[in-house]
């Protein structure tokens, strides 16, 4: 029984961090119609920034967390302004540019921090919650709580603030939004910054749990693409629901079988959904 509870909590944590990453990806696709292949690397930059500011400069985890969000947001905005803005009517060109950014960030991290360096970030809340033989590190619960907090804050912003309305308008119909005087440039930049910050936050929250390496973004982006397809591109709600479904499914299969079977099963789940509904669970149906 205790084993079951542990697995449920572990899958909740996996769902939380995946949801943060995938919502960021869905936001970018909704607003700018491109899949950001470098999204996993922004997750990685978040983890490295947390180590650099939190541990290496010794300012403590939460300073590192704030620094991670800031650094990734600035990086996201810079990528939009310098690179993606010039390729607005060229989706394939933008795709290649994000792959270029992916390669640069990976090589940069390996160069500056060393391929072999073992960076350790201590969890802000140490210790273990143990209830009758079942024990779960507090930090994992913090990750779940933080992710829920961030996602609710995001939905509130999108639903109520003027910025949120403008973002959703651009996602709905770029030209119509333009006609109403919404500056596409400003919205795209802030959407990219927000999306990058979400990935950075996920990276920062997971820093004490996973191995920090220049290639930690690779499995994250692959899972994110699978989940965004399951949820239907561009739909934020679909992304969150799909993140929970996929992560729970993956964690349980990897515990009861092994992670290779879990990978194959995850891919088959994605294919199954696509076969039944070729535009994802909540994606806009489009004539095939």
């Amino acid at each position, binding site marked *: 029984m205790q*084993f079951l509870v542990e697995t449920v909590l572990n899958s909740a944590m996996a769902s939380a961090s995946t949801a943060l990453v995938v919502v960021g990806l869905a936001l970018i696709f909704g607003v700018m119609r491109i899949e950001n292949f470098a999204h996993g690397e922004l997750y990685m930059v978040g983890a490295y920034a947390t180590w650099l500011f939190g541990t290496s400069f010794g300012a403590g985890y939460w300073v590192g967390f704030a620094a991670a969000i800031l650094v990734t947001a600035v990086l996201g905005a810079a990528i939009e302004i310098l690179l993606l803005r010039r390729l607005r009517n060229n989706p394939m060109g933008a795709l290649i540019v994000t792959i270029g950014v992916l390669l640069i960030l990976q090589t940069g991290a390996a160069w500056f921090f060393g391929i072999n360096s073992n960076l350790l970030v201590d969890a802000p809340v140490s210790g273990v919650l143990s209830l009758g033989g079942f024990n779960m590190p507090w930090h994992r619960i913090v990750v779940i709580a933080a992710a829920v907090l961030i996602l609710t804050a995001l939905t509130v912003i999108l639903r109520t603030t003027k910025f949120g309305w403008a973002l959703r308008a651009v996602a709905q119909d770029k030209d119509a939004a333009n006609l109403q005087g919404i500056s596409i440039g400003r919205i795209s930049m802030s959407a990219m910054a927000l999306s990058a910050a979400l990935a950075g936050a996920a990276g920062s929250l997971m820093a004490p749990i*996973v*191995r920090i390496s220049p290639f930690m973004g690779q499995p994250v982006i692959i899972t994110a693409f699978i989940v965004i397809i399951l949820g239907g591109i561009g739909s934020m709600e679909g992304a969150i629901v799909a993140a929970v479904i996929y992560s729970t499914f993956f964690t349980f299969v990897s515990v009861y079988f092994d992670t290779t079977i879990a990978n194959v099963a995850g891919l088959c789940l994605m294919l199954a959904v696509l076969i039944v509904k070729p535009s994802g669970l909540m994606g806009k149906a489009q004539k095939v």
Partner: protein
Amino acid sequence: MSRINLHLTRRQALVGAVATTSALAMPSVLRAANKIVKVGALAPLTGDLALWGIPAKNGAEVWANQVNKTGGINVKGERYDVQVVSFDGAYVAEKTLQGARAFVDQDVKYTMVIGGDDWSALQDFSNRNKMLTSTLYVSDLNPTSKYLLAPVEVHPFYFGLGVEYLRKVEPNLKTAALCAQDDITGRTSLAYWRAGFDAHGFEIVSDAYFDNSTTDFAPIVSSMLQAKPDTVCIDTTYPSVALLLVEQLFTQGYKGRILHAGLELLPDMVARTSKEFMEGSIAFFPRFDDPNINASANGFSDAAGFYKQFEKQFPKQWNNTSWEFPGCLEVWKQGVETAGTFEPDDLLASLKANPPKHIFGAARWWGKELFGIDNALVGNWPIVAVKNGSVEIVEIGDQAAWFEAHKAIVEKRFREEKLMPDQKR
């Protein structure tokens, strides 16, 4: 809106760029009195596995500088400086074969590979071109791998000794749980661990591989602990993965013994768990920052000095492979200097005739029963245990003797994992 048509078409621009950069690629000529002999580090320098490849290349360069400073290699009176050439095989067999071709073109006399997944493509090529090569995985050896040596480490042969020692010091332990990453390294070593546990009366209660892309290890550890093992073996997992596994074992209230190949990140493991938790954990590599390393690793000239020099040149980039490639070079140097030639066949004959010392002392060529060829340099190997937060050598065992005593069990377990020479695809 007329398109801005640059007079340069895309093809002309790209071709121009190719011309300039390849000019830069001309290797700079070394001003040296001695003649030059090239040795090749054919290892992944990009991608996940760069964490083995880059420290290995760096280690080889540090070793070469030290040897060149002390007059280089003496071949029948002629002095040669060692130049290390490298090629990024990205742990893909086909790319690694391209590297081998580049080395043959550059007349590289001795090639070092990590081995495992990326060796399969080199086999025929190395025989065809008499390419003397060293690998870190003894399981690469097979009846036709004439020019392939496993001179430094006979991973996973020392694991049998580890289980034997554990049985001796802790007679009451009954059950064992195993886990490893799902690649050739993991499969080969887990097969040997199983043989070890079978031989010494352990019951294996949990045995699973995890995918290389796994990031969160809590589920894996919780499924292992569900079987209530009193020994956990995390095999040859990468240093940082081993750290996460140990941390999960501590968090999830595990109270038994831990076995790992290297325990490279022991200081961090102690920081994340506790001295008491790590007490008695078993591994197979003394630490190079251990004050009396020179005494234990007497086959390696001035191990402590080498470590200091490496840390100076490549701060905080040390990994096991950092001394293993130099170990391979050390064996090759001894062979060349006794044989007085770089020519592969003569050098092989001389090496076989008088086996050089390997890092932990005297050794002999071995491997016929299991691999079909005696190309593994096997000697005694230390077992280290954690005492008060640091590792100490607690025993020196004879790997070949252990194998002779438990040959049947090992072959059964290797056959299960389809690792015997006749089962190779």
